[in-house]
């Protein structure tokens, strides 16, 4: 048996055999290995597809989202019909097709969820970064502003705003953004406080980098993990916020369909007593969507942060 001497060329060959993986690919591999995350992702893709296909569904069924089918979709006493071959998910109190409304409602929910979360994330990042990086009086003022926003009762404020300005999609998004950014803002601020004393920041500073350059070129890229996780987790809460507003009649104005509004239709006038599908259909959609985003958010955290308890699989 001969022992081959370890020559530099051999060492190089061995090194080439080990595939070097990027951080993204490692993250994706970890994510895909978590079945809950995988299913959630799949469900979210399906929900997006469902929302995008809303006009197609309307076309296929021949039922518009606000079209009232008073002969076939309602009893003479105005009671909605249960799921059947014409209306796959039944009808609502005005004889409208629940399936078509659910699809159009998904557009609203996802639009509000994603748009509001992105805006809220933008504000949260900016405020958190500024407060954490500059510290001192800036930090005190911005932190107190965050405390203030967090202490405002969400529903009371929403009701007051809506009664003054009138309900609309834009106002719903604005209200949700206003009440959503603080969580991320606080987290970012805390992270920045920890990061700004790290060596690479010191190094950048000693190289003469400006404050803004350090913030955006050195600190911000290190915050990508909490930003991704928190933004993903903000989407389901924004969807629930929107549903809450619409449920209370403060969000999307009828007859535009929204999931919260559909739930309100079931609750109004005790219709849920005779039309279970009016609760189950939008309720399940809301549950599945928020659950999927939450599970995906959890999975992302595990995948992005291998040091966490369940990470490193």
């Amino acid at each position, binding site marked *: 048996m001969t022992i081959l001497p370890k020559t530099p060329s051999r060492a190089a060959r061995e090194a080439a055999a080990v595939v070097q993986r990027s951080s993204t690919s490692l993250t994706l591999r970890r994510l895909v290995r978590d079945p809950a995350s995988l299913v959630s992702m799949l469900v979210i893709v399906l929900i997006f597809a469902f929302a995008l296909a809303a006009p197609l569904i309307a076309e296929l069924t021949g039922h518009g989202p606000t079209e*009232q089918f*008073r002969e076939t979709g309602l009893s003479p*006493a*105005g009671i909605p019909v249960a799921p059947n071959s014409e209306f796959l998910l039944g009808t609502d109190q005005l004889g409208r097709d629940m399936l078509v409304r659910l699809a159009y409602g998904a557009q609203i929910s996802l639009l509000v969820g994603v748009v509001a979360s992105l805006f809220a994330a933008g504000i949260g990042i900016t405020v958190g970064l500024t407060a954490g990086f500059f510290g001192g009086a800036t930090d005190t003022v911005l932190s107190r502003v965050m405390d203030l926003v967090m202490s405002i009762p969400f529903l009371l404020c929403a009701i007051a705003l809506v*009664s003054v300005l009138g309900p609309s999609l834009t106002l719903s998004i604005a209200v949700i953004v206003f009440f959503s950014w603080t969580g991320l803002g606080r987290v970012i601020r805390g992270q920045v406080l920890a990061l700004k004393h790290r060596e690479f920041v010191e190094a950048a500073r000693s190289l003469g980098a400006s404050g803004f350059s350090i913030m955006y070129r050195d600190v911000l890229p290190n915050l990508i993990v909490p930003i991704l996780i928190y933004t993903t987790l903000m989407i389901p809460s924004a969807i629930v916020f929107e549903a809450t507003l619409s449920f209370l009649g403060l969000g999307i104005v009828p*007859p535009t369909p929204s999931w919260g509004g559909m739930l309100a239709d079931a609750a109004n006038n005790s219709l849920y007593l005779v039309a279970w599908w009016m609760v189950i259909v939008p309720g399940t959609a809301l549950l599945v969507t928020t659950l999927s985003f939450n599970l995906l958010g959890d999975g992302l955290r595990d995948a992005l942060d291998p040091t966490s308890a369940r990470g490193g699989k």
Partner: protein
Amino acid sequence: MTKLFKSAIAIVGTVAILSTAACSTPGDGGTDSQGATGGTLKVLANGDVDHLDPQLTAYVPVAGVMHAISRSLIGYPTVEDPDARIVPEGDLAAALPEASADGLTYTFTLRDGVSWGAPDGARPLVANDFERGIKRLCNPLMSGAMLGYFQFLIEGMDTFCTGFADVAPDAASMKDYIENNDISGIESPDEKTIVVTLTEPASDFIYMVSLDAAAPAPIEALDYLPDSPEYRANFVASGPYTVESHSPDALLVLKRNDAWSADSDTLRKAYVDRIEMTMGVEGDSAMQQLQAGSADLLFDIQPSPANIQQLKAVNDTKLSTMPNGGVDQFMWINTKTSNNGGALQDIRVRQALQYAVDKAAVIQTMGGEELAAVNNGIFGPGIVGYLPYEPYPTTGSKGDPEKAKALLAEAGYPNGLTLKFPYRNLGLQPDIAQTVQSSLEKAGFTIELTPVPPTDYYANLMTNHDNAVNGVWDIALVGWSPDWQGGAARSVFQPQFTFNGTPQAYNYLDYNNDEANEYAKQALLATSPEEAAALWHKVDESVLADAVILPIASRLKANYHSDRVVGFTPYALSQNGDWTNVQLKK
């Protein structure tokens, strides 16, 4: 004016849900279906009474409370027959009054044995007490909602009220003014006789005297501010019950009034010993309690269409419906706004709206033909003057979008119009608004729906006439219940469709129609109900010819009660079972 829509549907309010009615006494172990005297009648309510003062109340369900504690000169029998139910008869008065030949003087004679449950024991109710009640209507602190009907009708009352307006609004000053000033048109030649002189003949005067607002008032009522907590705590009753306690928004307890004698009252049997009204209960919870037998009757809550569907599925005979004389819903078309270049001022555009609305669809949304009916005039069924007719006929009342489009094109709007349509965000209103929207859009209108909080709708949006002028709304749905039953056309027409220069809260557009006014004047002079009915119908036709209002439906009031209740019979004024004539199973 009637605070009707509070009564329309169980109010989905933000009222805190208080724990439900007091402990239940289910079944009492008996299977006897016969009622008996005694027991506690448990009533469930969502909201409180508007006032516990007969002169001030204007809320339909409260008529049931008042029927138990306060008596007027005239009343209505508690019977099943809807026609007989609105035929007035003597309550405190021994019989209907004799009218003089010129229709200006009415003479009432009080029954024997009628009395007050005064703090120091029973005291006979005398003729002068009636005048005191009428005088309280225009007290300077809080005038009665029905004052407008009496102030200019009873001779000398306007003078009395004008003087009263200058009196300091404290109990002592008001008492002093009431006891030392007279209304010249009300005389009491003896303790049993009341003579009322009117300024003009009024064929509906005897109906007006049936109102709680016209109930006699005891001298003790003047010791407190009207409807103050002290007034409520020291209530002096003339009916079979009196107030034991009242906690606002929580509980009202009525106990027997010992001064009342059954011989003096042909309208009330007063079977139960106590009546407890628990407030803050939501609609579904109330229905469940009634079905479980832990409560008996509803106050301001109505079974929802879904409840009704369920009850009908099991053939529950405890469910009943009754007409209430109102028109609910109807639409005002804003002729004051300059939106769309004043398009709504063109009668052809308004007629297009009249043809466009699918009234049958609205009926379906309201729960179908068992709960509502198409109504095409200003008067609802049961009102003298109501006659089914269709000034803007469409097949099956389903609307005629083509005819509407043609009228719009003729008026110069071939591409339709955009209209602002605020609606009350309460109960069935959002559904009704969307149903109307859907039918109007078929006719080429674009409808912008705006939800309005229910408490703001009448108080801030509609009754503020600037909103009409400034074009805040183009079309709006409202409803109206007459303030009394039977010969009540005046209480529909006068507050809503007349304008003499002084704005009226519920005439949102200061609408006036000289032709209609003339017919109304003649109708009030009519000597027979048939003649009055024919003339009031002409009033209806004249108003509809202007197409400013668009009547859609009249609603039926649905009632439900527990299995314990025996002899549930509707009382016309409260549109609910008569608390004073039900028995409880033993």
